[in-house]
């Protein structure tokens, strides 16, 4: 059975993959984020890695909700859909189910994805459709001019919380893991190299890949992540986790994370008590470990874990659906509507 879409796809099968540069992925639209906004870096890194993915531009779709972050698709020279607040995951799910051949990317914010779209977010994670989710976490509602968000820290003073917020924040990585995500990563707007690496891995993952990007909103929440991104502090506040490597951090690489029971603790590699061999070694295939690592977030005595927390394989939703369709067709043949209409109890009036 060939649909109209199948015909288009068939006709383009021989179109050779052009040699792209990052510039091929930018549009003629003026980028309207505030000068200095962390979103610029995310756009630049994404455009930079696109040529490496081996996917033609016309096969890519960026879907977003509403927020500063959600303006992203307008600046990507691919197909794009700027949806409604919180619903990007749902729009993208329908698109991916209808068109498994497309490379689908969801761009969302901490308000868009964690608050109004929280329900769609968790269900996308558990279904494991083969698409990417980039969450621009600036711990604030940027577009609506600075209210606290579901990732804002407690006590945050904003226009809507003049006495300090009494909301306890989500940790998006833990939320995604709790919802059975198969790929969970965290990266930083001010670490271009790291971000490129993570987004590339996310693109290669078979299943839903979730990337939380710490993003500075220099207008309404300036410096929210500076302790993790700026030279003088980041070495001691961030632990970059890598598959198969022990968790070492610190300016002199003199500190590590060791598991004490199920609890991670910081140990010194200098005082002779512990060596690298005592440290926790990251295994991105270990779901239990991913929970422990994600849970380090917001613990003041622990460095912030950044990197790929989990990357495991699980059947992909739309592939399972295609399998059922193929199975049904094998068993019953391709559906014939004439037969269907005339099936069951029928009778003839002369």
């Amino acid at each position: 059975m060939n649909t109209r879409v199948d015909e288009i796809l068939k006709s383009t099968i021989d179109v050779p993959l052009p040699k792209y540069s990052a510039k091929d992925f930018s549009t003629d639209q003026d980028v309207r984020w505030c000068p200095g906004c962390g979103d610029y870096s995310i756009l630049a890194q994404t455009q930079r890695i696109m040529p490496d993915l081996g996917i033609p531009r016309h096969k890519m779709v960026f879907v977003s909700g509403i927020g500063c972050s959600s303006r992203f698709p307008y600046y990507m020279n691919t197909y794009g859909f700027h949806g409604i607040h919180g619903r990007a995951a749902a729009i993208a799910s329908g698109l991916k189910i209808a068109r498994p051949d497309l490379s689908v990317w969801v761009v969302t914010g901490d308000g868009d994805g964690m608050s109004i779209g929280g329900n769609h977010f968790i269900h996308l994670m558990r279904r494991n459709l083969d698409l990417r989710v980039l969450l621009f976490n600036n711990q604030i509602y940027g577009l609506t001019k600075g209210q606290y968000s579901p990732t804002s820290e407690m006590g945050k003073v904003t226009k809507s919380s003049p006495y300090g917020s009494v909301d306890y924040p989500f940790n998006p990585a833990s939320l995604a893991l709790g919802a059975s995500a198969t790929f969970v990563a965290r990266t930083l707007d001010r670490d271009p190299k790291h971000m490129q690496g993570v987004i590339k891995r996310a693109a290669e993952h078979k299943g839903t890949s979730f990337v939380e990007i710490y993003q500075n909103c220099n207008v309404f929440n300036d410096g929210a992540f500076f302790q993790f991104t700026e030279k003088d502090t980041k070495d001691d506040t961030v632990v970059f986790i890598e598959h198969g490597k022990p968790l070492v951090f610190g300016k002199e690489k003199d500190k590590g994370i060791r598991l004490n029971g199920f609890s991670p603790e910081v140990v010194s590699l200098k005082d002779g008590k512990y060596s690298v061999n005592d440290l926790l070694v990251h295994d991105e295939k270990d779901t239990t470990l991913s929970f422990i690592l994600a849970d380090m977030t917001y613990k003041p005595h622990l460095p912030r874990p950044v990197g790929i927390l989990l990357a495991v394989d699980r059947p992909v939703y739309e592939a399972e659906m295609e399998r059922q369709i193929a199975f049904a067709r094998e068993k019953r043949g391709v559906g014939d509507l004439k037969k269907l209409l005339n099936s069951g109890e029928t009778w003839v009036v002369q």
Partner: protein
Amino acid sequence: MSQKTIETVDEVTIRFAGDSGDGMQLTGTQFTNTTAILGNDLSTLPDYPAEIRAPAGTLFGVSGFQIHFGSKEIHTPGDHCDVLVAMNPAALKVNLAGLVDGGSIIVNTDGFSDRNLKLAGYAQNPLRDGSLDKFRMYEVDISKLTALSLQDLNISSKFVDRSKNFFALGMMYWMYGRPLETTIEWLKGKFKDKPDILEANIRVLKAGWNFSETTEIFSVRYEVGPANLAPGRYRNITGNQAVAWGFIAAAKKANMELFLGSYPITPASDILHELSLYKSYGVKTFQAEDEIAGVSSAIGASFGGALGITTTSGPGVALKTEAIGLAVMVELPLVICNVQRGGPSTGLPTKTEQADLLQALYGRNGEAPVPVIAAATPSDCFDAAFEASRIALKYMTPVMLLTDGYLANGSEPWLIPDFDKLPDISPTFVTNPEGYMPYSRDETTLARPWAVPGTPGLEHRIGGLEKQNITGNISYDPENHDLMIRLRAEKIQRISNDIPMATVEGSPSGDLLVVGWGGTYGAIKTAVIRQQKKGASVSHLHLRYLNPMPKNVGEILTKFKRILVPEINLGQLVKVLRSDFLVPATGFNKVRGLPFRSAELEREIEEILKGIK
């Protein structure tokens, strides 16, 4: 064997009633299928409680199924029933008011225990106190006779209790001269792998028949000849099934994949169930996490070049509202099917109502016009779903399809359409990048071009922010916004060039025009025809297209002295007619969660014509 007389009648209404666990829906459906195959015209109405298994014997646990069939044209499930089969006192009490004076009651006497009488709130046994004297009573110990027929089989008492409905069915088959074969064939299919159960069920069914044939209790049998239906192949179909098939047919004729995003809700869930079966037709069903995801995923699928649809009931439409506005803005095809139920809020989930018309027409933020189409009968749901899809695809717009709980679960014989004769409704996807502008428009329809992802050179971005005319870029320009609002409205208005003129049933002018829409078609038609036969100057206009309306509606309205608009709401279409056409239309409104009775409509028509109202 006793002597039996045979009476010929041209129409009968039977109501099967019992506990929700008594299998009354199944009994009714079987009787319906057999009756359909005999060539009677018919109309059915199931009536069941919202609770899945309400406590046995209680009034609110009563489940009923009414079938109206005849050798003449049948348009409604019947105002009243001629025969009531009551499996227990609660079923009797709930349904007695719906029985005509002098009607027949068949009761399962075993169900009339002290406990059940008390549960139904009877101080004394109605079978003994003379309160049923004006009816023809048939008292049968169905439970005991069922048990007897299964005596030598090793069957549990639970099964015996559950199969007594087949005894009742057997009795009704005998009484109305229906063969047992259709049901036996069905049983054979269902219990292929359970020969014991199959044998037992067939025995009970036959026992019911044989009992009626032999016993002195029944002295009359009735004959209902075949109706004069248009020639062709028929099947019986419910509204929900017809909607589902209409969508499959539309996708096929559009050469597209069908994508349903839906969240379960009574009375729409059966469309989701039905479509989930058709994997081999390439139908993709996505049971979403909520209604918002249901409609949003359908919009995403449409963006990808599928026919995206979403099915729900009123509360679900409320949740989908924002996304429907998005579809208006991005101008992608989408069909939203609202199987209306009693509202507001959770309201009466299993009952019917027409109170979502204004929601369909106006229930969105901003100027967001959407075509609205309403199905008139269960089988008409097929055509309505097909037509809604056609319009959505041709005009690149969300379309609201309205049915209701009565149409959804009601059934009638359906002349199976010739698939080859259904029109080709396949859209044209743009493939040539030359001069492509996402918001340029077709001169006639004003539809924008549809470019699907995967097409080289047509990469573009759409979204809910206001678009600049032609380019589709974001625009905050005041004049452009005014222009785009008008263009979107004009596009929908132009659909009126592409739909049939409205036709009046009866004389094109006269004293009274009864204007209806949706599932009230059968009741209005029956009432109007009866009045016409009595010489009254009354005609019937039933609107399928509620937005935009056919171009001749305004003119039709001017040809009548009075306009009556019966609706199962407090007057929604009447408001639209009065404001759009400045006519002094008046409403007739009953919002009981039930279809209209044609008799009450007839009375209203009569009183208006006599000048009483």
